[in-house]
């Protein structure tokens, strides 16, 4: 039992950077390039953690606390996510509300840190981040509500647990719709194309990247690692929802889970390489569309 | 003692007309008011039976109104000391004498058990008031007096006709052939109904004009606007209440004759109409003394509505007679002070009164809150009693309109009052030499304290008095 918990934590803490590496590699291949090694992000993190940081005269302790709080919040959220068949470390009725609000806390901290620099670019990025997030938040909730309705459970572990398979038999269309909505939210929350371009170089078009312009050294490492962790969380949520191969054994379930996550990263990479970034003014429409989709899914279940 | 409280003011009035000295003459007012109040108090302690073979008797209903106006008159009399001192230029012979005669006549109205006597007394109050309105001897006050006299004389003539009708209704071979209230009520159904109805209509229009029920109210804004503040107080808190008492007397007879339903509908209609007109005319009123006139129209309307509702509402009505009388005293006396201090009663000129008159300004505001039925002041309770009665007997529309009008009036009146009281008074016109003195600011302050005290604790005897008056008015046993 202890071992399994440790293993779960291990997967939770170690796997995420790899996923982003996979995404980038897929994009590179699609673009006909060789691309960076799969473990590039690990190298970056290691390097950054060893470096010192440069701070602007404008900034206060808020700027320094931001990345730490962000990372801690995301990691804490992670403890509620059932990694494989078994329930998560933390699981109680209504925990998904805490899950969502912890992610919000991370956003709050990063955005404040961005505003602390007093730079117009970072202000811009923070504005876009919180605005789009507040449009994505209801969708996430709606999806979770749909799952709660379908599985009759009010905790993430329950929603994504064994009750899911029968739920798919009962209410496949609703769950499918909400899965699509969740995918859109995942792209938006992790600032991927088509919402945001993680490796653009024009500040005016950035969202997440421009927020963290001024962070350097370990702070930047925290932020990057937190981002990958968040990506992992959404990915896990999604794959548990759609691809719950009823694997029973612990190891097999674990393995299947990791494979599904890699597949999710590949999918994201494909989307990124074959879609263009939307104009910023179009992003709200997409997010609202997603939430309408999930409302429809909920109505299908309630009617 | 009954005759004493009537005669003392009259005698002193006569004395005032022959009193040589202009400075000391106002003292007679205080003397008259004090003796009058003492007499009333002794009547409270040792009630007396009918005198002058039943023509005069202070019953519960009369007691409420007479006591109210006696207190109010005392306050005004004290106020008059300060006021007339500031108006040394003017000969106050007629003013003082008229006021005392007015007091005597009012008391007579309160005690009259004979409709003829009642009518005579009402007529005297009118005649005594006209010259008082004209106290300022300028074109505006003259116009006001003239209008007051003409309109209310019309009303009084109609009232006399109505009195005749009533007499006629009892003139049948088996009728009482008398105008004594008791006889008429005892005769009850024996009275000839058509005549009773006709009488009620004429008397309601007649005394309603004195009350100032809309649309018979047209004399009020002019008279209240031009008369000195203390006369306004006596008009709004005294004479109009006595007119209401007269209507109550008439209603007693009509009700006893079995025409109550008709009478109630008529009262309800006029009352609601009055409140509506007050609500309409209050809005955007630029002259704060005329505004008070419309407030008086409103409260007469409330009384009429209460009487029209009958039942428990009438208790509230008599309570309201007291509250309204006192609160109106506060408002008019404070308004008079503000008028003196600014030499204007247009709200375009007057602002920051709370600064310039540290007592009268806030008093004006407090009086407004009191008269619009805001706790902790007593009108809140009487208005609630009336509303509660309306809802209790399922007259939801009446209650709804009642509340609606109260709300609109509150807004209309408050806008004006706040405009006058708040802000800074720099740049406002000023009349040097007038500031709050104890003689001018004390009386309204005491009246307000009385209203406040009644709002916090209503003595048992008063409540039972109101109930007795209500039983009397509605003929309930």
């Amino acid at each position, binding site marked *: 039992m202890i071992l399994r918990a440790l293993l779960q934590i291990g997967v939770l803490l170690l796997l995420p950077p790899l996923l982003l590496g996979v995404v980038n590699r897929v994009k590179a291949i699609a673009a006909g390039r060789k691309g960076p090694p799969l473990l590039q992000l690990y190298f970056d993190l290691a390097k950054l953690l060893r470096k010192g940081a440069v701070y602007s005269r404008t900034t206060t302790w808020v700027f320094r606390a931001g990345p730490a709080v962000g990372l801690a919040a995301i990691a804490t959220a992670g403890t509620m996510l059932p990694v494989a068949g078994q329930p998560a470390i933390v699981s109680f009725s209504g925990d998904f509300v805490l899950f969502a609000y912890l992610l919000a806390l991370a956003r709050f901290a990063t955005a404040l840190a961005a505003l602390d620099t007093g730079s117009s670019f970072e202000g811009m990025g923070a504005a876009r981040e919180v605005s789009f997030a507040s449009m994505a938040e209801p969708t996430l909730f709606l999806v979770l509500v749909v799952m709660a309705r379908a599985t009759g459970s009010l905790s993430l572990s329950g929603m994504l647990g064994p009750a899911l398979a029968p739920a798919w038999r009962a209410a496949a269309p609703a769950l499918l719709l909400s899965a699509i909505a969740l995918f859109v939210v995942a792209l938006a929350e992790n600032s991927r194309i088509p919402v945001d371009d993680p490796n653009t170089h024009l500040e005016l078009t950035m969202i997440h990247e421009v927020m963290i312009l001024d962070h350097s050294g370990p702070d930047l490492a925290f932020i990057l690692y937190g981002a990958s962790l968040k990506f992992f969380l959404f990915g896990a949520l999604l794959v548990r929802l759609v691809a719950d191969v009823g694997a029973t054994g612990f190891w097999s379930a674990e393995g299947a889970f990791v494979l599904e996550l890699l597949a999710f990263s590949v999918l994201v990479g494909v989307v990124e390489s074959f879609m263009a970034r939307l104009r910023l003014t179009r992003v709200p429409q997409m997010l609202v569309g997603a939430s309408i989709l999930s409302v429809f899914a909920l109505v299908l279940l309630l009617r | 003692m009954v005759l004493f409280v009537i005669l003392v003011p009259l005698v002193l009035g006569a004395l005032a007309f022959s009193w040589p000295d202009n400075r000391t003459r106002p003292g007679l007012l205080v003397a008259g008011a004090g003796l009058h109040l003492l007499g009333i108090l002794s009547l409270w302690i040792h009630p007396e039976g009918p005198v002058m073979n039943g023509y005069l008797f202070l019953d519960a209903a009369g007691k409420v109104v007479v006591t109210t106006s006696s207190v109010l008159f005392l306050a005004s009399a004290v106020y008059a000391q300060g006021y007339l001192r500031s108006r040394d230029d003017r000969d106050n012979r007629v003013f003082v004498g008229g006021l005392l005669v007015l007091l005597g006549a009012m008391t007579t109205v309160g005690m009259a058990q004979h409709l003829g006597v009642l009518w005579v007394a009402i007529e005297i109050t009118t005649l005594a008031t006209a010259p008082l309105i004209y106290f300022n001897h300028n074109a505006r006050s003259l116009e006001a007096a003239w209008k007051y006299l*003409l309109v209310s004389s019309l009303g009084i003539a109609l009232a006399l006709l109505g009195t005749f009708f009533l007499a006629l209704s009892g003139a049948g071979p088996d009728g009482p052939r008398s105008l004594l209230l008791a006889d008429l009520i005892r005769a009850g159904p024996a009275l000839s109904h058509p005549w009773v109805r006709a009488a009620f209509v004429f008397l309601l229009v007649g005394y309603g004009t004195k009350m100032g029920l809309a649309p018979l109210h047209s004399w009020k804004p002019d008279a209240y606007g031009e008369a000195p503040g203390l006369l306004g107080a006596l008009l709004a808190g005294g004479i109009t209440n006595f007119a209401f008492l007269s209507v109550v007397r008439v209603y007693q007879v009509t009700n006893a004759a079995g025409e109550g339903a008709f009478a109630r509908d008529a009262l309800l209609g006029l009352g609601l109409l009055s409140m509506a007109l007050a609500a309409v005319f209050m809005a955007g009123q630029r002259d704060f003394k005329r505004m008070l006139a419309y407030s008086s129209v409103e409260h007469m309307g409330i009384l009429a509505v209460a009487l029209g509702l009958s039942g428990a509402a009438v208790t509230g009505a008599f309570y309201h007679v007291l509250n309204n009388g006192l609160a109106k005293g506060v408002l008019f006396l404070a308004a008079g002070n503000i008028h003196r201090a600014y030499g204007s009663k247009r709200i375009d000129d007057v602002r920051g009164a709370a600064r310039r008159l540290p007592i009268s300004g806030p008093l004006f505001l407090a009086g407004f809150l009191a008269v619009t039925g805001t706790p902790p002041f007593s009108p809140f309770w009487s208005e609630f009693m009336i509303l509660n009665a309306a809802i209790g007997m399922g007259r939801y529309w009446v209650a709804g309109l009642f509340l609606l009008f109260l709300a609109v009036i509150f807004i209309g009146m408050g806008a004006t009052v706040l405009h006058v009281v708040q802000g800074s008074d720099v740049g406002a016109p000023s009349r040097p030499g007038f500031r709050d003195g104890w003689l001018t600011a004390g009386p309204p302050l005491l009246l307000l304290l009385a209203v406040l005290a009644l709002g916090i604790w209503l003595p048992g005897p008063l409540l039972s008095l109101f109930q007795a008056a209500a039983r009397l008015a509605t003929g309930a046993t």
Partner: protein
Amino acid sequence: MGAWTDMAFILVVVLDLFLLASSRLGAAIRAVALQGALLSLLALLLTSSGHDLGHMLAVAGGAFFIKAFLIPWLMFRAIREMAIRREMEPLVGYVPSLILGGLGVVLSFALSRGLPLPTNEMHPFLVPTALATVWTGLLLVVSRRKAVTQVLGFLVLENGVFIFGLLLTDFMPVMVEAGVLLDLLAAVFVMGIVMFQINREFASLDTDALSSLKD
């Protein structure tokens, strides 16, 4: 005897109509005076054997003195002292007011048929005449411009009321009766004083000048 009474009543009504039609102030005042005289006469004519004659004489005398003599004199004096133009200056034309008055007369006679008189010994014309006169008075007050003419109207109104009062002479206490007369006197008297004051304050006695008091 009865014929005289009928004549008197009819004359009162005719005077009402005349007042409505007359364009001359002086004539109107004389008409009111004549009406007052007629009333005091009626007061005597209507006294049946039932009442004490002294009282009725007092009432009739008082009425005659005030209505037919004192008040007309006051008004003439007012007109003379203030050089009031002698026209009535109606707001409502003579013909319409005449028609209204006639209508009032017809109605009052018609209505008073319906009114059940509890005292049967009274004269049949009394109530209708009273009502018609009251109506005329009100019409005059409402429809004439000058203050003097409004006082006239008020007087006619009081006359009507007085006529009606004659119904009750037998059981209405003396005091009230006296009070009535006294009040009428006082009312008109004060009005007269007021009118002099008006004259001092304003150029004419036109009540339209009394319209400075607005909200």
